[in-house]
């Protein structure tokens, strides 16, 4: 019952729990389940505010903090993936930081040049474009990370920090295979943001925080599609992708008689935050 106690403590969790159960057709059961578990004492004393069911291992002062720190956890990881991938693709040392000068136009590769083989791109143009995106998005993910870090701090919160042991990624030896990994991680990020956003507070709807989270998700979706384009894949979203956290449907539980069932690419899929956090653990050094 402890997990349900955690849910009971938070209005947002209760709502999210009921929504999820409702999507599975278990709405009434969800409510009665919560009612039956009222009053038992929690056995886990947490410092700060935690949600071990939905955001295991993440701390914050509020539900919004948890979502932002969840996002920051992923952005730190993603920024490091891009940094490592770009270093490998351009013959830089694995530990090198991003060059100080970020691209200033959509055709700008900064100071980077591809040195590894291109691999299985359909043509040279797509390979060149994939490398261009590698450079541009490396700086964007770093910017997301830095933005979230500042946003959490400036609101008085404690941002999560980089994993002390760093991150290990199975980077291939050509640009095409590296781009494939980028695609999988970007798509996981899109699903993560969409799955986490509904856990934010009512205040977040009106104060811009929710819109900001969805706006970051929007850019990750752009990245995912652009990278898919270079790989010769459809724009997506694709429901089942190797190496990507399982997708769930936003239309579950929302009545819509007209047009159902929908084409695969009609709605972005989401993943539960806890599922994402578990899925990225293998990358933590």
């Amino acid at each position: 019952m402890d997990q349900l106690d955690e849910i009971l403590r938070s209005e947002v969790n209760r709502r999210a729990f009921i929504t999820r159960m409702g999507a599975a057709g278990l709405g009434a059961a969800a409510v009665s389940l919560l009612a039956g578990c009222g009053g038992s004492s929690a056995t886990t004393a947490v410092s700060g505010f935690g949600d071990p069911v939905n955001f295991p291992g993440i701390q914050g002062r509020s539900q919004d903090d948890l979502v932002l720190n969840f996002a920051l956890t992923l952005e730190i990881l993603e920024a490091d993936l891009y940094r490592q991938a770009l270093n490998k693709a351009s013959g830089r040392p694995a530990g090198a930081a991003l060059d100080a000068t970020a691209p200033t136009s959509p055709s700008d590769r900064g100071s980077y040049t591809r040195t590894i083989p291109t691999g299985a791109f359909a043509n040279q143009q797509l390979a060149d474009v994939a490398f261009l995106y590698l450079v541009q998005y490396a700086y964007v993910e770093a910017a997301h990370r830095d933005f979230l870090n500042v946003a959490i701090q400036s609101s008085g919160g404690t941002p999560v920090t980089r994993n002390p042991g760093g991150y290990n990624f199975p980077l291939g030896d050509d640009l095409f295979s590296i781009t494939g990994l980028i695609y999988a991680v970007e798509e996981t990020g899109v699903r993560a943001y969409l799955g986490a956003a509904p856990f934010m507070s009512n205040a977040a709807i009106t104060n811009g925080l929710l819109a900001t989270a969805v706006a970051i998700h929007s850019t990750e979706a752009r990245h995912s599609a652009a990278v898919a384009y270079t790989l010769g894949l459809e724009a997506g979203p694709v429901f089942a992708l190797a190496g990507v956290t399982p997708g769930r449907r936003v239309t579950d539980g929302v009545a819509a008689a007209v047009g159902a069932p929908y084409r695969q690419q009609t709605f972005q899929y989401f993943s539960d935050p806890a599922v994402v956090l578990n899925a990225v653990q293998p990358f933590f050094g």
Partner: protein
Amino acid sequence: MKETNSLLETAAPAQREESRGASDIVRGAALAAAGIGIAALGSARRAQAQGTKPLLTFNDIPGTGNIKVLNYALALETLEADLYVQAIARLQALGVPANDAALTYVQSFAQIEADHRDFLRGALGASAITAPGQPLATASFDFGLAAVTDPNAILNLLYLVENTGTQAYLGAIKYFTDYTYIAVAGGIQATEARHTATVAALLLSRGVTTDPNGNPVSTAPLSNNNNGIDIINLEPTAVLAVVTGPNGFTIIN
């Protein structure tokens, strides 16, 4: 570089002092929408239209709270779905081959926009802005495509509209009253973002580097542009002021 990729700048084309390197499609579409030189543009559909072009504001969108936001989305999806239909017809009329990569993507995106429109119609039922008696029940849209001869210009308009739609959803989020439709709206929004990025990639591959408003075509905001994050301040009334009204695309028949 400021993120300004929106339709806002086409709102008053006659007032713009500089051309900004705008392509003929912008002038063509803007002029058609403004009702200027209709005969010269030769659009048969336009000549037959007897409707009016009222200016809509967010206040005019039916419903309150969540319903109003969904209806705003439905208005844009209805316009977008029709743009795609017209764009495909024009691209084919211009002789773009069936296996052209851009046409293939555009055809698949067209289906998705129709899905979005149909989903929102279903969710809103009689309250839908497109339902009988509601503001867009008898709406049609004129994008001036009959006068366009460059396929790249059509793609560029699609890019501009998709980019605007991507930002429009973000600007509307704060008007939701609870989380009932947040996931669904986010789910649709992400696909608009995907379409935008894909069309941007197609445009860049075809040598088109500026959108109809003269802003750089980019798959996503660069790191020095709002921290690489899409803007969240595009107001519904601002978007509606461009797509409806005398200078807009929306005709009420």
